[in-house]
């Protein structure tokens, strides 16, 4: 089976279309970053408080807003997510102003108190109790009348209660009766004296102070810049410096469009999205080098041809591999986007955009930069750049001979 036998598409002839396409997307992204949504940084980089809450029923966002308002958290952002999968989850976010450096977790405590406004007086919430709290309570009550080894036994029972809640029931118990299959009924009855079951459980909390947010921002940018620098140096050594420059410009183009897309969609850029952007940089760069390698090889073989023709030929020769690899990687990433769940959503979106843009850019951006540079040199009356062929006339000799 073969999709592309031998294509002969004039890619460089279409460079103005490519340029227009890239410009539209980059400019739209830049405009959105400058005037519309800005760069929507997540709590990691901006600082603030994020609490993920899971309900046992479809959450009523306006009621939650009401509870938070009454507790004085007027600027809280409440967002129900993954409604398609009926996950009953809500994300509550507080700005950095409400995240004090003195008492970092005050915002979290306030949110929990606000949501527990319908609590049963004098009882604790089993859905938000830690195993230690439960174990201590059981130890005090001793519902099973255990003798000497009560401590470890009740610790184990408390752990199985918490495990059932968190692992089997996804974080929220519907009622105390659900525990009867897991622990002794006497324990359940005793728990009922002190605990009630609320309709929510806290799944995840992120609190980032302003100082750390700033550090992370600086560090993510620096690490990315250094690694681009490393890439540039390596390519300059292996090829010509212009190849390194072209590769880095291409990667920059990809990053700009991806970040722009996040700005346009107003999706938050978190630390995991940064990891995805780093992945796309690696991927796009990989694609670019494959084309460059072929150009280098062809320049050697076809010494008389114009660079534009050589580049076109090289892109066409590698086109079948480009499309196959892109298609397969895209398949993996698409699986992640579709089945990866809410936590991976931003991350896989960055990859989905990144694979598309990264593949496109190695053909539409990287190669034309090489040709444009060559033409510019030509106009200034200089000789076309000769390719340094470090391994002599033939590529690296194969390591071993084929035995037939």
């Amino acid at each position, binding site marked *: 089976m*073969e999709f592309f036998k*031998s294509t002969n598409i004039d890619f460089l002839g279409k460079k103005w279309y490519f340029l227009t396409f890239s410009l539209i997307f980059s400019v739209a992204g830049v405009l959105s970053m400058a005037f519309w949504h800005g760069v929507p940084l997540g709590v990691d980089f901006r600082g603030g408080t994020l609490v*993920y809450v*899971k309900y046992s029923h479809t959450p009523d966002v306006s009621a939650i807003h009401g509870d938070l308002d009454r507790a004085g958290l007027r600027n809280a952002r409440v967002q129900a997510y993954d409604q398609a999968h009926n996950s009953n989850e809500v994300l509550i976010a507080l700005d950095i102003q409400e995240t004090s450096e003195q008492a*970092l*977790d005050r915002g979290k405590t306030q949110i929990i108190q606000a949501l527990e406004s319908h609590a049963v007086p004098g009882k604790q919430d089993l859905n938000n109790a*830690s195993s*230690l709290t439960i174990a201590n309570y059981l130890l005090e009550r001793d519902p099973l009348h255990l003798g000497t080894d009560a401590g470890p036994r009740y610790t184990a029972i408390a752990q199985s209660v918490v495990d059932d809640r*968190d*692992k089997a029931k*996804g*974080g929220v118990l519907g009622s105390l009766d659900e525990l009867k299959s897991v622990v002794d009924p006497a324990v359940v009855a005793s728990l009922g004296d002190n605990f009630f079951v609320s309709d929510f*459980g806290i*799944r*995840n909390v*992120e609190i*980032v*102070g302003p100082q750390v947010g700033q550090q992370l921002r600086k*560090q993510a940018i*620096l*690490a990315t810049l250094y*690694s*681009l620098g*490393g*890439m540039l140096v*390596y390519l300059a050594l*292996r090829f010509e410096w212009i190849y390194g420059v072209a590769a880095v410009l291409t990667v920059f183009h990809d990053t700009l469009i991806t970040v722009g897309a996040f700005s346009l969609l107003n999706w938050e850029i978190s*630390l*995991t999205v940064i990891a*995805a952007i*780093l*992945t796309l940089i*690696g*991927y796009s*760069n*990989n694609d670019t*080098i494959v084309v460059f390698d072929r150009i280098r*090889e062809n320049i050697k073989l076809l010494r008389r041809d114009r660079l534009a023709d050589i580049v076109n030929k090289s892109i066409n020769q*590698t086109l079948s*591999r480009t499309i196959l690899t892109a298609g*397969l*990687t895209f*398949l*993996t*990433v*698409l*699986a*992640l986007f*579709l*089945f*990866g*769940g809410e*936590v*991976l959503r931003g991350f896989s979106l960055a*990859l989905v955009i990144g694979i598309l843009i990264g593949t496109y850019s190695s053909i539409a951006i990287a190669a034309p930069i090489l040709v444009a540079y060559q033409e510019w040199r030509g106009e200034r009356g200089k000789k076309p750049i000769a390719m340094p062929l470090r*391994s002599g006339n033939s*590529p*690296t000799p*194969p390591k071993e001979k084929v*035995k037939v």
Partner: protein
Amino acid sequence: MNKNLTWKLVVIVGILLIFLFGIFGIPKVWSGSGILAAITDRIHLGLDLRGGTHLILQVQVNDAVSVDSDNAIARLKEDMRTHKISYADITKPDTVSHPDMIVVKGVPPEQSSDFKSIVADRLPDYDASSGVENSWTVSMKAQNLADLKNRAVEQAIETIRNRIDQLGVSEPVIQEHGLGQYQILVQLPGVDDPARVKEIMQSTAMLEIKQSLGGPYSSEQAALQDKGGVLPPDAVLMQGKSIGSRRDQEGGEQWYLISRASAVTGRDLRTAEPTNDENGQPAVRFILTGEGGRKFYSFTSAHVADSLAVILDNKVQEVAVIKDAIRDTGIINGRFTQQEVQDLAMTLRSGALPAGIKYLEERTVGPSLGADSIRSGVRAAVFGMLAVLIFMLIYYHWAGVNADIALILNLVILLGFMGYFGAVLTLPGIAGVILTVGMGVDSNVLIFERIREELRNGKTPPSAVEQGFSHAWITIVDTHVTTIVSAMILFIFGTGPVKGFATTLVFGLAANLFTAVFVSRVIFDWVLSRKERGEALSI
């Protein structure tokens, strides 16, 4: 089969076994859950996948500097008194940004050389420089200041580690956090309710036993009035916790006049343990070290019938009258719960923090969320992998089998590496795995497309395979080395998620260079060795 080829196959199988051991070890139980336990025993999951608490805290190193300069002031005053050097005033003008700076005003010019020699002899960590109007600025030498701050961070790490160890958290991470100044990273797997742990870590647990010179007073003013408006120079007012028998006065403020000098401090403790006081209330019993006991004995024998205050973190916990000389043991009681008593005994045993700490970042991943992330991540990865494996078979026929074997072996080696190096698999690490799979597929596609191209140009299968590999090899090296170079840089300069990504990527690409090129080639050679000359290659 060719001998050379046999050896290569042996190498491949050997490597496969080595890395399989890296992933699984030798499971104790040969069942599904036993094998799963064996894997998680060797490949550690990050907090984002297994649930737990991640904290970044900052040591307020200026606290430690302040303590040091307070001591320096005390020594300076004493020495100036003994050397009869007069001065107008000693202050610390900038406690916020220069807590080490001491300004001494009004030293007579004729005594300035004496003053300088006192500083040089008695305060070797400090430098004195003269300023306007007979004033002197005494501040800590830069090197000593930096040492003091770093030591405070090291001590804080040590103390926090002691405390967390006693809490029984498994596999905690407590280390200096390189990203910021004087920061400590604490990761506590499986801890989903950080409130108690945070409190235990934060309590400085500074225990002092001092003489109580008066009190309780209902307010600071009352204390001042009692002493005629002026406090004795060697005493300070301290607030007390309303405690013990005065439970009825709950909420009312209490102030005590406490001597500045300590009889004993937390450093003189040998151990501390929960107990009950004579009323059956939870309390903490402490035992002093030999030297501490002697100090305490001489102090108490000289102060029989005086009052003694037990002070914890600058709050008076208890005041009692000394009935008899005490040697080496005592009881701290207050209105403690059983839990508080246990925690207090534990923090006292683990030693005092040299400085206060402040929390900068707190993340808690509930176990349910971590489990969800794993489930969906693994599901997505399996779907993606299966789609890729099946496609390769359809598109490249028998050669697709090569690619599939190479890909699976790549994952085995990647996970095996992680098992051997104790690397941690995180969500961003899964991104690294995806890029690895992508580049692994890419290497195979590059090679196969090249072989097809050579076959189209009329080459025989063996020479097409050879040409295909040798051309693709250059490209593969270039793509892999650039990516490894940038991933290494990310590993060095990155922390947390960025590092997790770089780790799997470096391991994965290194494995890929082996599997896509060497393993795939050996399989091709093996297939070719079994074919008749001129027989077509299934690709």
